């Protein structure tokens, strides 16, 4: 009983304040990354489906590299690697480097979902758009993408949840977000409950997001088109 009280005391006075600061950073990382990740993901997908030689190749190479390279290595490259490159070297602070890395990762995976969704839009939709005198660009903008994005919502929200989780890797390049905050408290106090509390916070974030994503999916479903 005494131990429990002690642990609660520890949580309230030490752990929670530290985790709150970390959570702030995590939420910021995720909220800044997500819109860019979606926007670039759509661009990459359009480039891969409709792009002519060069654009197509660049998009494919980018996605291939980002998917094949561990995110942590990508963060190392951005944070430790880039400043050492002669002449063109740029130095990012840990937050910026994390954001850039996460946007790369998030957009590469998003592009896969969007690409699949674009391909699944029936050919007739494009034909009908052309027959009305739309240019290819207009047809993609007003007909294909609105349909494809709806279909990509489950995949995109899945990636959003992954983003919440892999944002923890920012700690590996010194940014003290939620996981980092927990690790620092743990190293100082060796209180075994720390990582469970951290875990509960992530589970809460992920669960709430899942519920939200399902609602979003329902909201944007086109009436009459039931899920398989």
């Amino acid at each position: 009983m005494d131990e429990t009280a002690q642990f609660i005391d520890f949580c309230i006075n030490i752990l929670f304040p530290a985790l709150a600061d970390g959570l702030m950073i995590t939420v910021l990382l995720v909220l800044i990354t997500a819109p860019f990740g979606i926007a670039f993901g759509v661009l990459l997908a359009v480039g891969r489906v409709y792009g002519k030689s060069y654009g197509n190749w660049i998009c494919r190479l980018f996605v291939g590299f980002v998917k094949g390279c561990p995110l942590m290595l990508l963060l190392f490259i951005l944070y430790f690697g880039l400043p050492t490159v002669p002449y063109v070297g740029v130095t990012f602070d840990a937050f910026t480097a994390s954001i850039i890395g996460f946007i790369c990762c998030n957009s590469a995976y998003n592009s896969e979902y969007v690409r699949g969704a674009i391909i699944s839009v029936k050919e007739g939709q494009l034909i009908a758009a052309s027959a009305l005198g739309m240019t290819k660009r207009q047809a993609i903008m007003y007909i294909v993408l609105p349909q494809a994005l709806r279909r990509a919502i489950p995949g995109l929200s899945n990636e959003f949840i992954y983003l919440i989780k892999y944002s923890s890797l920012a700690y590996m390049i010194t940014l003290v977000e939620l996981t980092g905050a927990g690790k620092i408290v743990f190293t100082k106090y060796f209180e075994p409950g720390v990582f469970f509390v951290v875990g509960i916070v992530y589970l809460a974030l992920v669960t709430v997001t899942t519920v939200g994503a399902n609602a979003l999916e329902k909201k944007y479903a086109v009436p009459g088109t039931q899920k398989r």
Partner: protein
Amino acid sequence: MDLFSVVAEWFPYLVEGILVTVGLVASALIIGACLGLPMAIGQVYGSRPLKYVIGLYVWFFRGLPVLVLLFMFYFTIFPLLNLDLDAFFVGATVLGLRGAAYQSQIFRGAIQSISEGQMTAARSLGMSRAAAIRTIIIPQAVRIALPGWSNEYPNILTDSAICYAIGVAELLTRTSQIVTQTYITMPIYILCALMFIMLNFAGMRVIAYLEKRVAIPGFSGGGQAGIV
């Protein structure tokens, strides 16, 4: 310092890292499959409490970042169990337990996609439910699950790099060590990235070969179109 001589000097060290990484990934995939398949069976055919427990397991392992899981098991759970495990074993176990959560969902989808008739036909031949699951359902489910399952490989491969955080001497850890010792940064990082991409490519080749070997003529099972 001459780049080539440095790379030549450290190359064997990196190759050892590749072996460690492959070991991590292979153990994780095997643990994941060995636990994931029974969990899937339990979730489809099991009793209500069993389904609930498995659901909880899946929710837990899919909801947490790999990094948090690694810290949790390495610093808290295994020490509390008085298990003094090598970092490699912790890494393989965590990736495996987490992989089981993901794999169980792939297998579950596969099992659920098998038509009712298969079970009915098996039972009409006098097979017990367990025998029908073992000899009729599972062989089909495993084949249907293969495309989804093969997507697990690149995920676990890139996730395995996170074991850096608990000091497993895998590819990324060794890369970082070389960087700190030689002050050659970008080339080593790029080399490491190429090695991961190569591993990814090679592994996918092996999986594609396996898929072909177990394929049943004319049986597509309507397997989910994996994101390519």
